[in-house]
């Protein structure tokens, strides 16, 4: 009886918290990825250097250590405190944003030079070129690696349970303590994460088709550079759910 109450009161809301954390940090990561990724193609060396430094720092950082640092160390250094959920979203968004910036940079670099020159010839501003020419063409290249990162991010959200955000992993631990039985709840947790990952991949497939159709490419045609930078991950075309590349 008691565990049933726990299941309804903690586990079901926990699923919703996991989805929320995934959503918020994905939005933050996307903003960071596009900002830092485009800054890394800037003409000014100082801008490229600063954006590159951001990338190197957050790529080398463990998101769990970053979360601990934001929750425990930062309040004492700066004398203000973060809500745990905000700290978790911030840590995940900043790290996965750094991985994503590499994807954005690579995809922008793979847009044919002539497209950029055409933009210059039509006297587009830098911003207009990015928005009207480069990003729409680079977008289809970005989506498969973004999908991989999104799955990594979803898996990363389990970490927020360690800094006391009541997501589904946290609730799962509570249920284990309450019921003294660990097998059912952890199996259920693993299956739920897999189901979420599966749904996200399906959704990203739809977006990929849209993005391709948007630039008049009905069939998937991937640039040579994007393929190289991805190496072993999803672009083999066969794997239903191939992820990876967080290391890159």
């Amino acid at each position, binding site marked *: 009886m008691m565990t049933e109450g726990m299941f309804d009161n903690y586990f079901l809301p926990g699923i919703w918290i996991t989805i929320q954390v995934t959503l918020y940090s994905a939005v933050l990561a996307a903003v960071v990825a596009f900002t830092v990724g485009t800054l890394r193609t800037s003409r000014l060396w100082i801008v490229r250097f600063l954006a590159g430094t951001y990338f190197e720092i957050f790529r080398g950082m463990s998101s769990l250590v970053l979360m601990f640092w934001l929750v425990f160390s930062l309040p004492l250094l700066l004398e203000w405190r973060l809500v745990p959920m905000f700290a978790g979203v911030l840590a995940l968004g900043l790290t996965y944003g750094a991985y994503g910036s590499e994807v954005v940079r690579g995809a922008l670099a793979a847009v044919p030079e002539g497209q950029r020159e055409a933009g210059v010839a039509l006297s587009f501003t830098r911003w207009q070129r990015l928005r009207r020419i480069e990003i729409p063409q680079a977008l289809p290249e970005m989506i498969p690696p973004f999908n991989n990162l999104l799955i990594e991010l979803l*898996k990363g959200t389990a970490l927020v349970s360690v800094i006391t955000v009541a997501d589904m992993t946290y609730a799962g*631990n509570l249920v284990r303590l309450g019921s003294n039985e660990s097998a059912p709840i952890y*199996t259920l947790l693993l299956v739920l994460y897999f189901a979420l990952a599966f749904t996200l991949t399906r959704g990203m497939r739809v977006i990929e088709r849209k993005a391709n159709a948007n630039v008049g490419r009905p069939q998937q045609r991937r640039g040579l550079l994007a393929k190289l930078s991805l190496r072993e991950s999803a672009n083999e075309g066969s794997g239903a759910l191939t992820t990876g590349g967080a290391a*890159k």
Partner: protein
Amino acid sequence: MNWDWEIVNDFMPSFWDGVLVTLQALVLGSLIAFGLGLVWAMAQRAPFAWVRWPVTALTEFVRNTPLLVQLFFLYYVVPEWGPSMSALTTGIIGLGLHYSTYTAEVYRAGIDGVPVGQWEAATALSLPRVRTWVAVILPQAIRRVVPALGNYVIAMLKDSPMIAVIGAMEMLGEAENFSNTTFTTEAYTIVGIAFLVIAYPASLLIRVLERRLALTS
């Protein structure tokens, strides 16, 4: 700003203990990941569907679920019907198993990259299956994926703090223990910097390795 170098000094002995445990987990975890990943990759090319299918399903499942929950599973569920292991052993097995599903993809790409002619030549010379793999295919496949494997070692380094959650005393575990007993927070900053200090040169090394191997092949 509250920063006390005395505390940093006090933390150093347990910090170095933590570094050793982290490196130990990383080396052993990598060995498991490299070995098991190769097994998965070869099983996925097996001539029998009843081998390919379950292996693909298992690796997809492990790769798409969080390492943290897998660690809980290994630490709390497996001892109910299997051996009970220490937190560190569980952590090493968890890291190795999780990353083996990534290295399997790396090997698969490497094996797919070996020209078909090599397989045909091995068949034409009527080499047995084992020799085809060991003497012809794997040496060519593994060579070209070494940098990609290295990237996953760095990724594993960044995921290694998760084993502190089940109680292994690696860097983050030591920092947490120290901070909780002394009511200070400097230790987390030190560990954060330590990750950067280890990960950045390692990624530079892999870039060099990438260029080297690309030049000679």
